[in-house]
C-alpha cells in the first residue's frame, strides 16, 4: 500500500443542476466541497430530495457535473470522457440503495458479480473468473449454490450482499454507498453495516456513505456531513456531531430519530422538525433552512450564511454561530 497524503476523494465546489422544463433548474447539488482521507468514511446525511444521492452519482460520474472539480486520488476526473474514465472506474465503485432494483433480474448471481471482471477484461479464463467470483461470494457469506440462482430468489439482505460483492470484486479504493441500508429490515441493516466495516478494515477502503438518518451513520463514519437542499450545512467528526450539533437542522434531525426506549419516548415531544422540504427548483432565499428553522431572523431570510469553522474541524453554515 502506498503511503501518501493525497485525499482519496476531494470534491471542490461541486454543482449539479437538472433542467426541469421551461427554463427552470433543479438545484440538486449547489457548491458542495469536501474531502475524504484514505481509509476513512464520510457519512452524508439529509432528507430525501436534499441532493445527497445526486451528489454521489455526480462524484462517480453517472451524472455530468454542472461545475466544480472531483479529484480521485489526486487526479481530476470531473472533465474526463466516459472512455477516459474507464481505468478510474476500477478504483471507485458504488453500492446502491434498492436491493431489488439494483440487480438485473435476468442474470444469475454469478453473472452479476462477474460483470465488473468482464468489463475490465481481468480474467483470462473462465476458470479464473469462476474462482474469483466464488471467493468474493464466500466473503459476503454466500456459497456456490447461491451463485447459480437468480436475484429474485434471495432475501433483501442477501441481495444487498450480492451488491457488495459486485462492488468489491474489482478491489476498489473508494466505495460510494448510496443508502445501502435504507431499504432493509433493522436486523439486516446491522449485518450489512458490520460487513462494510469489516471490509473497510481488511481492504483499507474509503467510503462515502449516504444515509437518510443519523442513527446508523454513527457506526460507520469518521466524519459526518449534513446536507439540506443541495448544500452542506454542517460537517465535523462523527462523535462531535452527536455530542455538539450546531446547526438547527442537525439538531432537528437528531431529535427525529425514534428512541428505542419506551420510558424516554413518551416524554419526548415538541422537538423535531416541522414542515416539509421546500422545492429544490426554487430554493428559499438566504439560508435555505429558514422556512423551517425555529430561530430564523430577518438576516437568515436575506443573506446566505458563510461556511465557517466554528470549532477545530467543525464546519457549519449558520448565522447563529459566530466564528
Amino acid at each position: 500500500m502506498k503511503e501518501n497524503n493525497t485525499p482519496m476523494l476531494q470534491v471542490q465546489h461541486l454543482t449539479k443542476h437538472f433542467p426541469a422544463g421551461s427554463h427552470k433548474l433543479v438545484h440538486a447539488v449547489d457548491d458542495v466541497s469536501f474531502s475524504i482521507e484514505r481509509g476513512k468514511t464520510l457519512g452524508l446525511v439529509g432528507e430525501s430530495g436534499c441532493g445527497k444521492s445526486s451528489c454521489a452519482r455526480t462524484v462517480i460520474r453517472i451524472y455530468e457535473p454542472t461545475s466544480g472539480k472531483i479529484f480521485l486520488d489526486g487526479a481530476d476526473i470531473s472533465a474526463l470522457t466516459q472512455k477516459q474514465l474507464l481505468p478510474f472506474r476500477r478504483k471507485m465503485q458504488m453500492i446502491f440503495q434498492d436491493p431489488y432494483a439494483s440487480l438485473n433480474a435476468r442474470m444469475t448471481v454469478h453473472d452479476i458479480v462477474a460483470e465488473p471482471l468482464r468489463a475490465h477484461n481481468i480474467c483470462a479464463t473462465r476458470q479464473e473468473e469462476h474462482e474469483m467470483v466464488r471467493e468474493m461470494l464466500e466473503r459476503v457469506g454466500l456459497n456456490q449454490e447461491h451463485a447459480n440462482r437468480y436475484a429474485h430468489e434471495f432475501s433483501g439482505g442477501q441481495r444487498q450482499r450480492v451488491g457488495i460483492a459486485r462492488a468489491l470484486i474489482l478491489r476498489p479504493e473508494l466505495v460510494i454507498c448510496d443508502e445501502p441500508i435504507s431499504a432493509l429490515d433493522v436486523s439486516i441493516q446491522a449485518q450489512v453495516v458490520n460487513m462494510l466495516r469489516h471490509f473497510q478494515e481488511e481492504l483499507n477502503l474509503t467510503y462515502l456513505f449516504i444515509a437518510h438518518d443519523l442513527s446508523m451513520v454513527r457506526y460507520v463514519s469518521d466524519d459526518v456531513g449534513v446536507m439540506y437542499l443541495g448544500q452542506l450545512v454542517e460537517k465535523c467528526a462523527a462523535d462531535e456531531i452527536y455530542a455538539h450539533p450546531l446547526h438547527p437542522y442537525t439538531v432537528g434531525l437528531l431529535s427525529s430519530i425514534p428512541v428505542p426506549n419506551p420510558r424516554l419516548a413518551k416524554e419526548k415531544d415538541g422537538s423535531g422538525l416541522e414542515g416539509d422540504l421546500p422545492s429544490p427548483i426554487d430554493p428559499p432565499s438566504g439560508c435555505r433552512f429558514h422556512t423551517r428553522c425555529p430561530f430564523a431572523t430577518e438576516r437568515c431570510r436575506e443573506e446566505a450564511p458563510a461556511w465557517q469553522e466554528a470549532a477545530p474541524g467543525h464546519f457549519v453554515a449558520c448565522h447563529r454561530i459566530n466564528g
Partner: protein
Amino acid sequence: MEPVLQVKDLKTSFLTSSGEVQAVRGVSFSVNKGESVGIVGESGSGKSVTSLSVMQLLTGTGKIVGGSVKLNGRELVGIGTKEMRSIRGKEVAMIFQDPMTSLNPLLPVGEQVSEMLWAHEKDLSRADREARVAELFRMVRIPEAEKRLKSYPHEFSGGMRQRVMIAMALACKPDLLIADEPTTALDVSIQDQILKLMRSIQREIGMSIMFITHDLGVVAELCNRVIVMYGGLIMEQADILDLFEHPCHPYTMGLLASIPDINQDKQKRLQPIMGSPPDMIHPPKGCPFSPRCPYACRVCLEELPPIYTAGEGHVSRCWLLDADAPAADNPLSYAKGGKRG
C-alpha cells in the same frame, strides 16, 4: 370488557408456482379498546398478511385457511364482500405504506375523503360533508386545511399524503385503525411528525391502533403492547416496557441489539442477527428462528416450542423458558419456569 379485535389461530396461505407459502401459521391476539398494539417483524414474518387477513383484503391466491377474526364480536372470516365493505372504513380502517398508490391521482383529495364519508353516511348533506372533511384536515394538521381540499395528490409531499390517508381513515371514526408500515417510506423527520400526530389523535379520540412495523424504535414511541412475529408465528407478546426491559425471546433480544442507539459508543459494534429469514414454502420444522438463534438446542430444531407465560400479560414461544431447560448460559433463566399456556 370485550376486545375490539380478537384473532384466534389465524392461518393464511398463498399458493404459488413453487408451492404453498404458509405466511401466517396460527396467530392469536386481541386488541382492546383504546389500546395501541405494535406488530413487529421482518419482511416475510407474516405481519402484513395478518393485517390484510383482518381487513379481508387478501389478493391473488391468498386465502385464510383457518381460525377466526372477530371485530366487535362479529366474525369476519367468510363474511360476504358487501357486508365487509360496509364494515371497512366504518369499524376498521387501514393506512398503507405507500400513500401515493392509495390515492386516486385524478381527484382532489378533499373529494376523496368526502367520498369515504358519503359511502358510510348517506344522510349527510354536501356542505356538512365538506365541513367535516375540513375539520379532519385540521385534525391531521394539514396547514391551510380549507385551501388544500381542492388540491390533487401530486401537489402534496409524501408526509402530507400520509396525513390525507389518515384523515380518510378517521373519517367515519372507526373503532380500530390498522397502520401497515405507514412511516417506512418517509424520512425520519416526517416519520417523527406522523408518529406525533398519531399519538395525539389517539389521545384525543381514543380509538384502538394496530401498528405494523419492522422498527422497534417506532413501536417504542407509540405502542402500549408489542407482538413480535417471526416465520408466521407470534414469538413474543408483552407490555411495551416489559418487552424492552425483560425480553424473553432470543429473537426479540437480537432485534433490540441491532437497533442503533445514538447515545452509544461508536467503537461498540452492532450485534446483528446472522442469517436470513426462513422461506415460508419450507418453514423450519421446529422453532422458525432456530437456524439463526445463538442459543438453539436440539429440541428447538425438532419441535415447535409451546407458548410460555413469562409474566403478567407476557408470553413467549421459546424452549429456553421450559422448566427443564439448562440454566447455564441461558439468557432467559430469570424468567424460566413459567407456565406452559
